[in-house]
C-alpha cells in the first residue's frame, strides 16, 4: 500500500515538474516573437482606421469567448451542459457572437488528443473516464496542474500570453474586426476562470475592453485583474470548489490590502453574485436543468438568466425584445435529460459529467 502511495506521489511530482515545460518551450521557441508580431499587426490595423472607436452601441456587436472547466480535452470538445448553456445564451443575446473553440489548458490551443505524442494516452483516459474508471480522471488532474501553472507568477505570464493569442485567433475566426475594437467578455467556468483572467492582461493591451464572467471560477490574484473592465464572479452557496481561489491564493486574502485583486474589489471592478444553492459540479450544479430554484426556474436557467442579465445591464447587448422567441433563451434540453450529466464531444463521443 505504501509503495502505491509513494508511486502516486512520485508520478504527481514528475507531472508537476513537467507541467510548465510546454508553455516555456513554446515561449522560448516562438512565443515571444509571435506575441509581439500579433500585437504589432493589431496596432497597425487599428492605426489604419483612426476614427474607429471602441464599440459601445449594444446592438452593433459583442463577443463572448467561452473557456471550459477542467474536464475538457480540447477546443472541439464541450460537455453537453456547457454546450446547452452557450446555445441558450446565443439565443438570449442577439448581438453577441459566442466563441466556443478555445482550449484554455494549453498555451498553443492544442487539445489533448491532437498533435501530441501523448494523444493516444488522453484518448484512452477519455474512454476510461466515460466508463467511470478513476484513472481516466488524469485528464482533470492534468488540467488542474495547468491551472496551477497559470496561477504561478513565474510561469503564468508566459502561459497567458499564449492563451491570449489563441483567444485572439478564436475572435478572428468568429469574424472579429480588430479596427472596430468591439468589447469582449470572457465567460469561464471553474478552472477556466483563472486561465481567462491571465489572458486579460494581453487582450487589454490590444486595446480591447475585456470583461470576465466567472461561473464558480477558481482564480488567483493574477496581474490580469488590474486590466479587467469588470469581473463578475457568479457562485452558488454550496459550491466549495470556488473557495479554493480564496483560500489558497494569499493575494486574495482580505489581509493583502494592496493586492491587485483587493484593489479591484475596492474599485468595484470585481463583484460577486450569489445566485442560489448550486454545487460546483454534478447534480444541483450551475448546469443542472432538473434541480429547481424556489422561484421555479431550473438551476441551469438561473445561471443563464444571470449571465444574460449581466451582459445586457452592462450595455453590451440589447437582449431579446419583449415577446421574443418562444424558448426565450431557456434550455431546450428535455426535462429528465439533465444538461449537466452527460458531456458530449462535439465530434459525437460521449463523456462523463464533471
Amino acid at each position, binding site marked *: 500500500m505504501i509503495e502505491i502511495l509513494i508511486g502516486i506521489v512520485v508520478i504527481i511530482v514528475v507531472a508537476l515538474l513537467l507541467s*510548465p515545460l510546454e508553455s516555456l518551450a513554446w515561449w522560448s521557441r516562438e512565443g515571444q516573437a509571435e506575441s509581439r508580431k500579433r500585437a504589432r499587426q493589431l496596432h497597425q490595423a487599428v492605426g489604419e482606421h483612426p476614427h474607429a*472607436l471602441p464599440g459601445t452601441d449594444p446592438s452593433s456587436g459583442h463577443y463572448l469567448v467561452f473557456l471550459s472547466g477542467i474536464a475538457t480535452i480540447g477546443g472541439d470538445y464541450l460537455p453537453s451542459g456547457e454546450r446547452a448553456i452557450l446555445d441558450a445564451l446565443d439565443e438570449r443575446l442577439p448581438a453577441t457572437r459566442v466563441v466556443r473553440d478555445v482550449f484554455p489548458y494549453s498555451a498553443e490551443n492544442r487539445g489533448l488528443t491532437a498533435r501530441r505524442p501523448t494523444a493516444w494516452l488522453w484518448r484512452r483516459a477519455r474512454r476510461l473516464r466515460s466508463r467511470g474508471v478513476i484513472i481516466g480522471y488524469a485528464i482533470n488532474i492534468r488540467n488542474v496542474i495547468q491551472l*496551477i501553472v497559470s496561477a*504561478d507568477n*513565474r510561469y503564468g505570464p508566459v502561459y497567458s500570453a499564449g492563451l491570449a493569442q489563441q483567444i485572439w485567433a478564436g475572435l478572428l475566426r468568429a469574424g472579429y474586426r480588430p479596427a472596430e475594437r468591439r468589447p469582449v467578455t470572457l465567460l469561464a467556468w471553474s478552472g477556466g476562470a483563472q486561465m481567462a483572467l491571465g489572458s486579460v492582461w494581453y487582450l487589454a493591451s490590444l486595446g480591447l475592453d475585456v470583461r470576465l464572467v466567472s461561473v464558480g471560477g477558481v482564480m488567483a490574484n493574477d496581474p490580469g485583474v488590474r*486590466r479587467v473592465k469588470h469581473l463578475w464572479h457568479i457562485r452558488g452557496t454550496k459550491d466549495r470548489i470556488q473557495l479554493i481561489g480564496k483560500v489558497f491564493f494569499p493575494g486574495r486574502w482580505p489581509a493583502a490590502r494592496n493586492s491587485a485583486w483587493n484593489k479591484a474589489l475596492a474599485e468595484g471592478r470585481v463583484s460577486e453574485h450569489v445566485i442560489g444553492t448550486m454545487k460546483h459540479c454534478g447534480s444541483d450544479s450551475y448546469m443542472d436543468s432538473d434541480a429547481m430554484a424556489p422561484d421555479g426556474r431550473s438551476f441551469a436557467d438561473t445561471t443563464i438568466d444571470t449571465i444574460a442579465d449581466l451582459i445586457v445591464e452592462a450595455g453590451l447587448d440589447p437582449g431579446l425584445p419583449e415577446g421574443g422567441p418562444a424558448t426565450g433563451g431557456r434550455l431546450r434540453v428535455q426535462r429528465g435529460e439533465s444538461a449537466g450529466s452527460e458531456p458530449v464531444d462535439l465530434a459525437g463521443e460521449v463523456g462523463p459529467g464533471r
Partner: protein
Amino acid sequence: MDVLHLLGDILQVARGAMGLDSEVISRVDSGGREFVVALGVALLAGISSVLGRWAVLAINGVRGGRLVLSIVVASLVPFILYTLTAVAVWGTATVVLGDAPSLGRVVPVVLLATAPHIWGFLVLVPYLGPGIERILSVWGALVLWTGVAVVLDVDRWTALGISVAAWAITRVGAWLMARPLQWVRDTIWRLATGTPMQLTVQDVLDAFPMPEPDPQEGQR
C-alpha cells in the same frame, strides 16, 4: 579515483549534512579528498538549482551551446557564494575566538550548507516552488549552523552567533558591491546567453503596455 565511488561519497555526505549529522560533517574538515567531496556537493546543488530556475533560461530563449554554458556558469554560483561565506565565518571566528582553524578546513564544511539545494530542482514545481526554495534556504542555514559548531568546536549558541554574523557580513558585502557585482553578472550573462540582459517575467508583462487612450474618446 573511481567516479562512481566519488559520486556515492558525495551523496552519502550530502545526506548526512541534510540530516544535520555532526559526525559526517566533521569528516569533511580533514581536507584532501573530503574537499573534493564537499565541492561535489556544491556543484550538484548548483546544477539542481539551475534546473529549478529553468524558467529564467526559457523566458530568455537560451538554447543549444549557450544553454549548456549557462548551466555550467550558474552551477558554480553556490560554490562561489558559499566560499565567500566561509571566508566570512573564518574571519569572524578569528576575531571573536582569537584562534580559528585554517580557511582550508572551514571552506569544505561551509560548502556542505549547499546540500539541501540538491533538491533545488523542485523549485520548478508550479506555485509551490518559491515556498520550497525558502524551505531549502532555511535548511541550508541549519546545516551551516551545525557545520560551524563542528569545525570551530564551539557550543551551538556561539556557532549561531558566528553564522549569523558571517551571513550579515556577506549580505553587507553584497550590498556594498552591488554595482560591480551586477556588472559582473550581466557580463557573464551576456557571454553565456548572447542576450543583452536578463529578461524577467515582469519584463514580459511590461512588453505589453496598455495602448494610449484615444483622444477622440473624451470628445464623444
